[in-house]
């Protein structure tokens, strides 16, 4: 079993839709949770970063962590064609910097 599981998709939605991206993880020691966005042939860039359980909002993006169920979510409101990319969830333990990434979900937003 992978430490972080993520459905690779692809996920295709119409412009303006609400997008829900999800990951599960197995190690309860993970404390930091991140979402990265990766455009084709580019390196990933950090979108959202949360510590422990709870919600964090940044513009059209909301990251949600439920440590009791080991579930991580990213919601995108009013999705735009420019949101078309691969979204990777990632986790880190409290004591170290080793980062475990999910496989990434490929998102297509159709105009």
């Amino acid at each position: 079993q992978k430490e972080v599981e993520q459905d690779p998709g692809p996920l295709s939605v119409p412009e303006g839709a609400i997008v829900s991206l999800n990951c599960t993880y197995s190690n309860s020691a993970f404390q930091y949770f991140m979402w990265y966005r990766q455009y084709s042939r580019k390196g990933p860039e950090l979108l959202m970063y949360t510590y422990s359980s709870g919600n964090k909002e940044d513009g059209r993006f909301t990251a949600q962590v439920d440590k009791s169920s080991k579930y991580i979510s990213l919601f995108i409101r009013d999705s735009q064609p420019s949101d078309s990319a691969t979204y990777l969830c990632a986790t880190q333990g409290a004591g170290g910097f080793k980062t475990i990434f999910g496989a990434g979900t490929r998102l297509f937003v159709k105009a």
Partner: protein
Amino acid sequence: GAGVSQSPSNKVTEKGKDVELRCDPISGHTALYWYRQSLGQGLEFLIYFQGNSAPDKSGLPSDRFSAERTGGSVSTLTIQRTQQEDSAVYLCASSSSGRVGEQFFGPGTRLTVL
């Protein structure tokens, strides 16, 4: 300011040859990571450097892989006796030790082993 840079951007080599991939992190960043991304796969952690501490090499897939970081800055990932399964994009990232979680990635080196 300058971001993370990697060279070469593309590398084609023959099976059995050695290759060196270079990463220039953001100036002042003490942490440096190497990852491998195969088609349809997520980022596979390879190795992590933090300041002068011993690197975390737990992700290196075999003893053909090694990495060094000179002077706390530039890093080189070396793959000896390359195999076709080594074909992937190799990504480098750096971070400031004060911001756990936030890593800045380079554009990657696309390695193709024929």
